[in-house]
């Protein structure tokens, strides 16, 4: 038995760790086109800001592959998979045989066709090499930056760049920042805070053309404005990194379609993480959920099943914890109500700049946005996951001292003691 994983990020870790819980023997081969051992994508902005050095980018110990009997093939790209003969083909035309295959190729940056994209100092913001290149440009004297996209990674890029002393403008097509995790009201609160640190926003417009002679000099926006700029960072979003599998018998919708075992439509082939489209438990539909915990959990589920232990994962839903400067927020589930019968609970403590909004339907929490009041938020994430009826404690959920004492005694004890007797 040979396990092969394409991709070497957190979904791969979940898979390796699950396999090694039940199978200590059979080889695991991990293939990645990046030359680094497994590192954290979310940390690239911390690296750029100078908060994390290279040694802390890696999410597992140096002896991780050795300890887990993993054979890494790093710096080699998989260019196709021969599902009939069960072989992965690499860009040097060598072939890697598998018995069980996990596709965990993650996401790649989405970049709309843009005039001037080929100029020097135009970057995307996904990989370690991306921030190393941006770092180089700053060291070479770049002073002004335009970031395209006010989502999670765009704002993380903007924060890092301003911490490095650049002038930063963020351009966003939507009418608000962080559209995937905040509604308009919450977004305003966060935008105000971020602006205090000097980041300038241009909302409801987009980039029209990047202008320069060999390298970036100016950016023209769709609204006609022209901004001076030395660096452009595209951070509009990610799309599943699965081009090399298109046109095969593998079933692909937006991402690779998987069931609750992370199985694809092809026998012995599994998919997990940002390249996969699994079931979203809150939205009640198949979706790509491009976040870290989901990638780990899907990878882990795939790993168990690949090793012959049946496990299911059908409780995936979006959740995010992120901070900019001193504003921290945790959000989960539905953040913009999608029907009329959803009840909205809100509390805004202007003095502490703390904000909590929770959506409840039929007694169940569907989603929440917490800003600057995040302690113990996991209890509420877990309520979404468990579908707990919160009717009797609804309004306490808005208080930052909400806790187990708000639950009925039996339920609290069951949760804390987990069946054991103290």
């Amino acid at each position, binding site marked *: 038995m040979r396990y092969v994983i394409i991709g070497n990020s957190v979904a791969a870790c979940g898979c390796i760790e699950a396999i090694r819980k039940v199978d200590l023997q059979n080889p695991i081969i991990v293939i990645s086109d990046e030359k680094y051992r497994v590192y*954290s994508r*979310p940390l690239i902005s911390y690296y750029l800001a100078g908060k994390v050095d290279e040694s802390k980018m*890696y999410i597992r110990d140096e002896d991780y592959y050795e300890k887990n009997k993993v054979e890494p093939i790093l710096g080699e790209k998989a260019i196709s998979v021969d599902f009939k003969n069960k072989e992965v083909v690499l860009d040097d035309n060598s072939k890697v045989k598998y018995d069980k295959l996990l596709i965990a190729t993650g996401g790649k940056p989405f970049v709309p066709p843009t005039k001037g994209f080929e100029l020097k100092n135009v970057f995307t913001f996904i990989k370690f090499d991306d921030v190393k290149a941006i770092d180089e440009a700053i060291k070479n004297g770049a002073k002004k930056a335009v970031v395209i996209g006010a989502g999670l990674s765009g704002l993380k890029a903007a924060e890092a760049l301003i911490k490095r002393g650049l002038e930063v403008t963020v351009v966003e097509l939507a009418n608000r920042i962080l559209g995937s995790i905040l509604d308009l009201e919450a977004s305003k609160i966060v935008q105000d805070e971020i602006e205090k640190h000097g980041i300038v926003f241009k909302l409801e417009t987009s980039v029209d053309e990047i202008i320069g002679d060999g390298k970036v000099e100016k950016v023209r926006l769709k609204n006609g404005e022209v901004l001076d700029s030395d660096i452009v960072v595209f951070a509009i979003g990610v799309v599943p990194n699965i081009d090399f599998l298109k046109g095969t018998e593998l079933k692909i919708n937006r991402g690779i379609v998987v069931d609750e075992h992370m199985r694809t439509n092809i026998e012995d082939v599994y998919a997990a993480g940002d390249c996969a489209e699994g079931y979203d438990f809150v939205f009640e539909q198949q979706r790509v959920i491009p976040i*870290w915990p989901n990638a780990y959990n899907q990878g*882990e589920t795939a790993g168990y099943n690949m090793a012959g232990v049946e496990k299911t994962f059908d409780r995936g839903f979006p959740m995010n914890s992120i901070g900019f400067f001193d504003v921290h927020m945790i959000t989960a589930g539905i953040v913009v109500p999608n029907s009329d019968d959803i009840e909205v609970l809100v509390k805004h403590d202007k003095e502490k700049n703390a904000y909590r909004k929770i959506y409840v339907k039929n007694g169940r929490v569907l989603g929440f946005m917490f800003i600057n009041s995040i302690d113990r938020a*996991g209890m509420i994430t*877990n309520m979404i996951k468990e579908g707990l009826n919160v009717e009797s404690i609804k309004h306490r959920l808005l208080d930052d001292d909400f806790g187990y*004492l708000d639950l009925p005694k039996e339920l609290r*004890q069951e949760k804390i003691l987990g069946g054991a007797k103290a």
Partner: protein
Amino acid sequence: MAKKIFPKEEVCVGCHLCEVYCVYAHSKYKKPTPKAHELIKLYNKYKDSKPTPRILVEEKSGEWTTFALQCRHCDDAPCTKACITGAMKKLEDGRVICDEEKCVGCWSCIMACPHGAVRRGENKKAASKCDLCLELGEPACVKNCPNEALVIKEV
């Protein structure tokens, strides 16, 4: 299987001594029981921010019940799966610990922990959580609770 600490809400009086001993056990003194002068010195060190205990005494105004909660060292440890740095990890002995050097304070663990057992440490820089005081042989909170409201057990 991991050891876990279980709170007994029937006998907890909410004195918060477990918090004091926890802070002490995780200070440079690293001892289970403090001498008074060491304790004063320790608390003096934290001028602006109160030290963060790795245990949380739950209490609610208008209610008599209190108890002290800490990390459950979950078998599936959702905090470790959400951690973007690898700082939060499960050790072979079942304990879940946070490598505070690696932690960047993104609070993904707070988002994921179903018990609300992760706290933001001093100056809100790194996650602070119960590590069962392994070096001490016995958790300081359990050893020093005057009411025996905390019990450690293998489960």
